[in-house]
């Protein structure tokens, strides 16, 4: 291993367990893998994760080193996401203690315990919620970072935006408070000390907490009544400006439209249901939620809908692809095109659905095209089964024009 490392082949090493035992080799591989992540090399992040999660001591060292730099150097904030991905990959191991300590939780052991226990059990309970509610409504609340754990936030969203909410009514405001706190409150921390990298909290900004809380309460009331969300569309659109409400609505709408009877009517009438128009609006407002929206649309696109007529299912699939085109128009380009390309390759969906996609897409996009777009889209558009019947002899149809435009893009 050391000879491989000495010869400079660091990228060959990451996945081997023995490599990490030698500190010197570990550091070299750590360095080269981090470099590849920053350069955007495919697979680099997963190599990095494998390297440092080989064992708990390498995990701890890497997280310590990264956490010491977040507030200390230019670009340091990028490390937060990298640390999160590492934590996501080792969910089976018990690292909440480490994560919560890094989130500056040491001085609030009860709060740490409450968050850790709910995340570990994947379930919320009123007693722990009460502990958090009290702590965060106090004059000297714990750091907000301690609360903002992905697992915990997801539990709150799922239980509040459920189509069958089970939270006792008198506890509900506390759940809403905690979710709003995560969304709206931010803090100012001192520059880390040179000696031990510790920071002190200088200020807490809570101005938007009340408004967020109130908006969350209102949208939840509306969604509990079901029809209100559809009839009060302008009000709903206004609430969607809050990321946390949009995130919750993706969850709630997903549950709503997956009800077996939901699309029966929509498929027959060919009308796009209001719930999907809300999804479009979220895509417009929140680029950071594009991935979640695409995941939902993929799930809907691939669902068998056994209760629906085959033709109605085809109409629905086109309707879901229309939503994906909306996503493309909002900037979520490569993930959508990558998915549609792979869905076509599976050969289990009627080709007319993809023809519809190509036609609708070519209707809204124009050059200059990026190399990546051409790489993703050309296989579909140049496939005669999909687009043969769309071409005209004069070459002025959208397909021929696109193919012509692609010739100007230098695809290596």
């Amino acid at each position, binding site marked *: 291993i050391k000879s491989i490392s000495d010869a400079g082949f660091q990228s060959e090493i990451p996945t081997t367990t023995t490599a990490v035992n030698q500190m010197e080799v570990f550091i070299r591989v750590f360095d080269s893998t981090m470099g590849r992540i920053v350069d955007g090399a495919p697979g680099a992040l997963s190599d990095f994760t494998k390297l440092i999660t080989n064992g708990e*001591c390498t995990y701890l060292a890497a997280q310590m080193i990264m956490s010491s730099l977040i507030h200390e150097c230019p670009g340091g904030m990028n490390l937060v996401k990298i640390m999160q991905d590492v934590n996501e990959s080792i969910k089976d191991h018990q690292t909440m203690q480490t994560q919560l300590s890094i989130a500056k939780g040491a001085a609030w052991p009860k709060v740490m315990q409450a968050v850790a226990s709910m995340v570990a059990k994947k379930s919320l309970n009123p007693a722990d919620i009460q502990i958090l509610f009290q702590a965060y409504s106090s004059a000297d609340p714990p750091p907000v970072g301690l609360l903002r754990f992905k697992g915990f936030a997801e539990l709150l969203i799922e239980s509040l935006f459920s189509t069958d909410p089970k939270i006792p009514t008198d506890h509900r405001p506390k759940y809403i408070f905690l979710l709003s706190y995560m969304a709206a409150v931010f803090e100012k921390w001192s520059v880390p000390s040179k000696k031990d990298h510790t920071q002190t909290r200088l200020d807490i900004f809570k101005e*938007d907490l009340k408004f967020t809380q109130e908006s969350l309460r209102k949208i939840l009331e509306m969604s509990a009544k079901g029809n209100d969300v559809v009839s009060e569309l302008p009000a709903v659109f206004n609430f969607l400006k809050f990321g946390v409400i949009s995130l919750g609505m993706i969850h709630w709408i997903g549950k709503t439209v997956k009800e077996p009877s939901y699309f029966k009517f929509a498929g027959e009438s060919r009308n796009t249901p209001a719930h999907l128009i809300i999804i479009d609006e979220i895509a417009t407002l929140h680029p950071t939620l594009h991935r979640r929206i695409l995941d939902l649309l993929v799930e809907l696109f691939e669902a068998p809908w056994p209760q629906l007529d085959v033709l109605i299912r085809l109409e629905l699939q086109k309707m879901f692809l229309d939503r994906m085109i909306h996503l493309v128009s909002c900037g979520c380009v490569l993930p959508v095109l990558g998915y549609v390309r792979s869905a076509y390759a599976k050969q289990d969906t009627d080709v007319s659905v993809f023809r519809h996609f190509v036609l609708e897409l070519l209707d809204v996009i124009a050059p200059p095209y990026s190399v990546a777009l051409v790489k993703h889209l050309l296989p579909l558009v140049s496939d005669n089964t999909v687009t043969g019947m769309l071409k005209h002899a004069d070459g002025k149809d959208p397909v021929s024009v696109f193919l012509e435009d692609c010739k100007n893009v230098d695809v290596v």
Partner: protein
Amino acid sequence: MALNIADVPQWLINKLGPSEKTWVDGSIAPFLTKDFLKEVHDCFPDLPAAVKIKLLLSFLHIVRRNLDTLRPELESIIEMAINDEQDQWVSLTAEFLKTFPAKGEFNLNVLENSAVFNEMRNDIKKHLKKLADKNSELHFVPYEAELMNRKAFVATFGNIAPPQKHFTLKQKPKSATLRAEALAKASDPSKPRLQPG
């Protein structure tokens, strides 16, 4: 938990698992009493490096209220581990844990292993500088972006770098018409209201 163990090193090796097992589940934490830790202290230098590391990491699973009572014993083992000359992973892990018994938090004032600690920090800094030189925006976006109000997110993490442009938008897709129609219907009481589904 009362424990009468004749062969402490062997017991630790058995309990903490073979050297291929590199993660700690905390199952030995309840056994770590004052008396037992004293015995561990005596045999610590002779333990295999992998066992030393896993023993140290087990400290993270000790219930907080016990940390205070066990503090002197834990700290003396940690101190010995920091000075371990056979394996630097033992020493580095112990240094991170130095303040754990007293405060429940990690120590980043790394002294014994400052050379490796700083080397890795500098490596990361060098790579991040490349990113920051392009622009100061966020290239790797943490999950909080899905959840937080924009103002709070930007104040905490900074602005997100805009996505790459892949084409020119010739016209808005049909979704724009649908949106306008739906809003018109919703605000016009004379028209039948949209039904879900």
